[in-house]
């Protein structure tokens, strides 16, 4: 499968996360300066130079657990806090939204346009902060450099790799159900109408040629759908009209973010069996997380003056109920980082751990070699 999938997965999921957080910050009337700080902090961390360097290296996709851990860290890169239930719901929404976008892309290459839609929105979030803006622009350049030369077949391979990652996920999302793009069984609606992808002809014609290359007859057939000719192609530049609406912000204050846990497909249990197999690439995942945490500024957590909690639910009771009633097979099992035997990874982690202790905050029992890195972070 493709080794170029991770940057697209990360950037698009990150983009969806920002849409949802932005909506929740408004819905909960968080003061504008705090909200802006949260968005800026998260975007700065997302586009941290060293982190992106690691991200853009050719590599296999991370396990669901590892990726969920990365986003946990990212969501907590600022003064905002989320409870487990809210974090679970946030991640459900992010993943189902991107799964929808990947599935509905008319051509595999359109995934890049979806990514640019997310990038365009992120750029808009930080348009007043030049330092972050330049990081975002640099990422555009990296995306263009890496992806525009790829062939359609290579994009399809990326798409297929993403679809394997999203396999068997059928969480129902309120907005999708209301807009009738998702069925009550959690599967997305695939219309047999509308414009064909750029580069494709409307089906319905058979042309036959003689040995000399002359067309000697043409036959029409009923294509069973209601197709129209392709729209113009979207722009693959840093600026431009992307044409597709996939990847643009579908949330607003008046459209709440709900998911339904009950009635998910009975096949959802199956995917956890496959992902339970040990991932032999844990070292690479560790490197990425180390880079990510290296880019994090040390924040004093839960300080009454600055910190605050965001919820993805209407009430605290709802949030608690969601945590208790979440089906086992849908738990993400956030990864428990153990320092590996590998010398290099060890040194890197030790260095980061050291940086954190030097800043004056105590880290719990760092002397213990097998310590939980996440616990160390929480102790700050």
């Amino acid at each position, binding site marked *: 499968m493709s080794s170029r999938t991770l940057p697209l997965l990360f950037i698009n999921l990150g983009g969806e996360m920002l849409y949802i957080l932005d909506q929740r910050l408004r819905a909960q009337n968080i003061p504008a300066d705090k909200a802006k700080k949260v968005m800026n902090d998260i975007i700065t961390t997302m586009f941290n130079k060293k982190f992106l360097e690691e991200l853009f290296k050719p590599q296999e996709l991370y396990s669901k657990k590892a990726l969920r851990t990365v986003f946990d860290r990212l969501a907590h890169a600022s003064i905002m806090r989320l409870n487990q239930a809210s974090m679970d719901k946030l991640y459900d929404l992010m993943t189902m939204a991107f799964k929808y976008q990947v599935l509905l892309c*008319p051509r595999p290459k359109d995934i890049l346009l979806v990514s640019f839609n997310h990038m365009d929105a992120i750029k808009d979030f930080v348009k007043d902060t030049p330092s972050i803006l330049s990081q975002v622009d640099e990422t555009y350049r990296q995306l263009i450099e890496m992806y525009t030369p790829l062939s359609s077949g290579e994009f399809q391979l990326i798409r297929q790799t993403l679809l394997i990652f999203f396999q*068997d996920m059928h969480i129902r999302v309120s907005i999708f159900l209301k807009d009738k793009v998702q069925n009550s069984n959690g*599967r997305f609606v*695939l219309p047999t109408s509308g414009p*064909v*992808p750029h580069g*494709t002809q409307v089906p319905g014609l058979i042309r*036959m040629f003689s040995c000399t290359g002359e067309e000697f007859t043409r036959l029409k057939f009923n294509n069973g759908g209601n197709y129209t000719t392709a729209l113009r192609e979207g722009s693959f530049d840093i600026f431009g009209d992307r044409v597709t609406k996939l990847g643009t912000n579908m949330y607003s204050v008046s459209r709440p973010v709900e998911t339904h846990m009950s009635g998910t497909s009975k096949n959802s249990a199956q995917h956890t069996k496959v992902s339970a197999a040990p991932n*032999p690439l844990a070292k690479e995942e560790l490197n990425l997380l180390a880079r990510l945490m290296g880019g994090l500024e040390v924040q004093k957590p839960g300080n009454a003056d600055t910190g605050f909690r965001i919820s993805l639910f209407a009430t605290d009771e709802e949030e608690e109920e969601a945590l208790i009633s979440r089906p086992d097979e849908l738990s993400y099992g956030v990864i428990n980082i153990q320092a590996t035997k590998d010398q290099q990874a060890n040194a890197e982690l030790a260095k980061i751990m050291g940086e954190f202790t030097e800043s004056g905050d105590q880290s719990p029992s760092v002397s213990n070699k097998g310590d939980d890195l996440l616990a160390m972070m929480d102790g700050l």
Partner: protein
Amino acid sequence: MYHKEKSIQIKNSASALYNNLSVLRIAPRRLTHFTVVHANMVNMVSASWDGLNYTHRQLQSKEPNVATSTSLIMQMYESDGSIMVYWHALDTPETPTAQAVFARGIAAVYENYICVGVSSGAILVFDVPSKGSNITLSEVLEEHKESITDMASECSGSQECIANLVTADDGGNLCVWKSGEEFQLLNKIPGFDMSCSSVKLWKGTAVAGYGTGQIRLYEAVTGILHAEINAHARWIYSVDIAPFSGLLLSAAEDSLVRVWHMTITPETNSVEVVHLHNECVTDTQICGARFCDGDGYAFAVTGYDLSEIIRYIQS
């Protein structure tokens, strides 16, 4: 023309991979094997013809051997999946390339060869003796420059055809071969930078399905284009031929399976195609479609995220 029959449940859902359904009819035992890929696992269902017995088996790829830095690309089993008889691994390149090493496209070729395509564009030719399990790598064909997508051997049963293998790649290029101790390249049909995801060879005609949704029929040895069909609104994932009747099956991400009929007379170089039938698998991106028998009396379909094999039978 066709109506839906009872579906067969599979243990895992099908992954979005080209040609993701294989069917093997074992007439003496009155059963049919169906195989569908889910990530790195093969799901096998053996269905008895009386519809009463379904046996399931799952084959998982061996864990990659990180220590020796090789990539396992192929495992060969007995046809019921009971015993692994052979496996093959390729060396992983020193520095990770942007494309992982993987195998895609497989065909059994006259007289006793199995060919496997690789992501680099290479084709491995294995010699499978009729007796014993001494399978050897006979040759590596390095004609394609892009990843192999699919390949097919001549399925008409006629041994008069000069070409007996066609291979396809991500650039839409087709190579036409004659098998033997040394495979001979007979022709190269260029693509237009549009991936050919599925290909079949029948009576010397290569039938190719493309990412643009087009199907093209080429005379394999000469490269003459005989027919071009604007067949589907999305990427084609599978084409199949019923060799006794000339029926053609095509399936795509657009949720549609279409049945066509081809009339091919090699002696007069004439090729004709007509459209016969459509089936829509609602809200499903189809990833595999095969006829279950040589006449095309029945066909089976798989779709992404679907945990069943849907079957259709002629009315």
